[in-house]
């Protein structure tokens, strides 16, 4: 037996817990082992110390207190089963709720709906238009049609920008105006539009009327209130497309050149005026507004239907404009004036949260951006809004290339024809050329000329027809620097022809032969012209 085991036996020996055999063995070992004798003495001392500890003084009232406690708890007044009470209470409440829901689903639903309505009421109360007719000038609305931006803020240094996101999605984004201007290479403004189309006063008033007719609709699509709710009607995208279509149709109607350019160049793509669905789209967008709004609040997002009385809104806005005119003298900011709007929440049309989840929001220091589904179909009609919007956008792209990039002016001197062109996109504006018209002789439609650049010194240009491609060309030495393609830039050629016609008329006395050649050239309908820029 090991010494540790013998020590253990010593402890048990002290407690009289050994069998007779074990006791006899350990007694013999104690007698012969000083170490065991010493350990036994230590263990005896410990046992003696512990057993010598006095017990607590007796508590004579313990039993009475215990009896009182038990009696109290048995009678239910106390906490006899403390842990079961909250569990039982919770169980009872749960059962009661289950019974209530089971047998009174209508009341439960009404209770739920009531709470839901309370939330809606809170976030949709006092919704007001973010833009008002006074905020939006005709030029703002024009820019909205062309660039999909609306000015935001008193300083108008930010814009609300509409951009396309994923398929079927559109971004509503607050951005700095400078960034937007950088993105817009084709910076067509309303003034250039009017100048380029040579709009007279009546036409300008008509254009203004068209633009103003959209201001109320635009105003009703973005609503805000003091609870930091932002409600956006995705129909704004359709409004922008409809506005574009109306401006294009107006341009085609107002200017013969624009009409030719837009509708003869590509019959399939630019047939807006003949597309009945486009007309329906415009009418529906203007007069049958969508009531669906995407609402962003500080702690939730949801979609809901809002009934907006456009007529009432229009009256309110008109009154507001009058107030503003009155108040302008007092230098009162428009934004400080109270705005009221008749917005009625349609509670029955609380959309499923899954729909609301289709909305995504991005916020950083410089921009605020959120994505919502584009309105797919207009109510009560069955054409595809996406395809119509695309068609209008393509028409706008073509229209932008009309004249806004190439500005041709002409004047006449005794023996030279000056014209200038500018390409604002390329930043080469103001390059004027003077064409000295020599005696053309019997050169047919070929105009071999010497072109003198006023800004680039004396440079000889050759101008003539290209037999292989059927177009005009300008040559500097042997290099073709300008080629005119009739199929691509038909309208520019037409413009040029008219200028040349004017030139001929005014130089009729000494250029009779050239005029005849040019007239013969104009009547040649089989000629295919092609123009290409290689600058």
């Amino acid at each position, binding site marked *: 037996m090991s010494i540790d085991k013998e*020590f*253990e036996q*010593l*402890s*048990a020996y002290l*407690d009289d*817990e050994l069998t007779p055999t074990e006791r006899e063995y350990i007694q013999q070992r104690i007698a012969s082992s000083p170490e065991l004798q010493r350990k036994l003495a*230590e*263990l005896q*001392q*410990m*046992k003696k*110390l*512990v*057993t*010598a*500890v*006095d*017990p*607590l003084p*007796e*508590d004579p009232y*313990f*039993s009475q*207190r*215990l*009896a009182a*406690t*038990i009696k109290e*708890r048995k009678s239910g007044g106390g906490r*006899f089963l403390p842990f079961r009470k909250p569990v039982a209470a919770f169980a009872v409440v749960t059962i009661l709720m289950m019974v209530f829901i089971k047998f009174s689903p209508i009341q439960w639903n009404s209770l739920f709906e009531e709470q839901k309505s309370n939330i809606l009421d809170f976030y949709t109360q006092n919704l007001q238009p973010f833009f008002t007719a006074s905020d939006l000038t005709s030029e703002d609305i024009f820019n909205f049609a062309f660039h999909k931006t609306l000015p935001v803020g008193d300083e108008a240094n930010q814009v609300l920008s509409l951009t396309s996101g994923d398929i079927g999605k559109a971004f509503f984004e607050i951005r700095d105006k400078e960034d937007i201007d950088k993105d817009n290479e084709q910076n067509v403004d309303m003034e250039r539009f009017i100048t380029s189309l040579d709009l007279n006063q009546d036409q300008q008033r008509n254009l203004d009327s068209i633009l103003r007719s959209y201001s109320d609709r635009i105003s009703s699509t973005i609503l805000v209130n003091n609870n930091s709710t932002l409600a956006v009607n995705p129909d704004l995208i359709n409004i922008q497309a409809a506005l574009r279509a109306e401006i294009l149709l107006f341009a085609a109607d107002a200017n013969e050149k624009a009409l030719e350019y837009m509708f003869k160049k590509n019959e399939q793509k630019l047939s807006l005026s003949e597309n009945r669905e486009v007309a329906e789209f415009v009418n529906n967008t203007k007069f049958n507004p969508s009531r669906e709004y995407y609402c962003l609040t500080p702690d939730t997002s949801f979609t809901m239907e809002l009934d907006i009385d456009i007529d009432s809104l229009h009256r309110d806005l008109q009154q507001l404009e009058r107030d503003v005119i009155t108040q302008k003298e007092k230098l009162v900011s428009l934004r400080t004036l109270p705005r009221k709007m008749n917005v009625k929440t349609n509670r029955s049309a609380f959309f499923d949260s899954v729909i609301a989840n289709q909305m995504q929001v991005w916020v950083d220091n410089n921009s605020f951006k959120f994505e919502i589904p584009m309105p797919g179909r207009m109510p009560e009609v069955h054409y595809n809004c996406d395809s119509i919007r695309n068609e209008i956008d393509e028409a706008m792209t073509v229209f932008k290339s009309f004249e806004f990039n190439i500005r041709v002016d002409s004047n006449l001197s005794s023996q030279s024809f000056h014209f200038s062109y500018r390409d604002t996109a390329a930043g080469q504006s103001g390059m004027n050329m003077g064409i000295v018209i020599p005696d053309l002789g019997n050169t047919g439609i070929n105009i071999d000329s010497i072109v003198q650049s006023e800004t680039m010194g004396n440079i000889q240009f050759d101008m003539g027809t290209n037999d292989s491609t059927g177009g005009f060309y300008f040559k500097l030495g042997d290099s073709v620097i300008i080629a005119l393609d009739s199929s691509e830039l038909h309208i520019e050629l037409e413009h040029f022809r008219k200028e040349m016609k004017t030139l001929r008329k005014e130089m009729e006395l000494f250029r009779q032969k050239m005029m005849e050649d040019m007239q013969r050239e104009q009547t040649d309908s089989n000629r295919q012209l092609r123009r290409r820029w290689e600058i």
Partner: protein
Amino acid sequence: MQENKNKDDVQPQKIYALQDDFSLIRRFNDGDDQAFNLLVNRHKEKVRNLIYLTLGNTDAIDDISQDVFISVYRKLKNFRFQSQFTTWLYRITVNKCRDYLRKRKIRSIFSPFNAEITETKESPNKPSETFDIQEIVRNGVAQLPEKLRNPLILRDFEGLSYQEIAETLKTEIGTVKSRIFRAREGLKKILEPYEKELL
């Protein structure tokens, strides 16, 4: 007369013998609440001292003792008479002490600066001005690990046999023997700073 007197002397002893723990439990289970009071009076001081030595000097002794006997009151109908009542009673007491220590430890973790739940035990390693030997020993015992402390207390204070201790703590007799030895060795080490005072 002398015979009668002797008879009277024996009678109470005989009655008392009938009031053993099992009999009192049966009487209580038959609806005699007075039997429970007798059971409490018989064992309350053992329970209080067991708690006192297990926890050290604490104000919770009375609350824990009450909890122990309330548990006994509730569970007595399920007592199966397969072990001593004391074994069963001490097991409940040990478990109540264990619960209390666990709760106190949890509270100390989440409220480290709460003065109410700080340890009240005085360290025996730090000699105090007054040398109360009993207090030093009591605190030394309280400093032992629980698995060593409980068998030692049940043996040296309550006088339980190794067999009863094994049943109370639900362990083996050999384990009890080993733990009691190690408890005494541990206590000796704890009390070494007081060796001179204790001798």
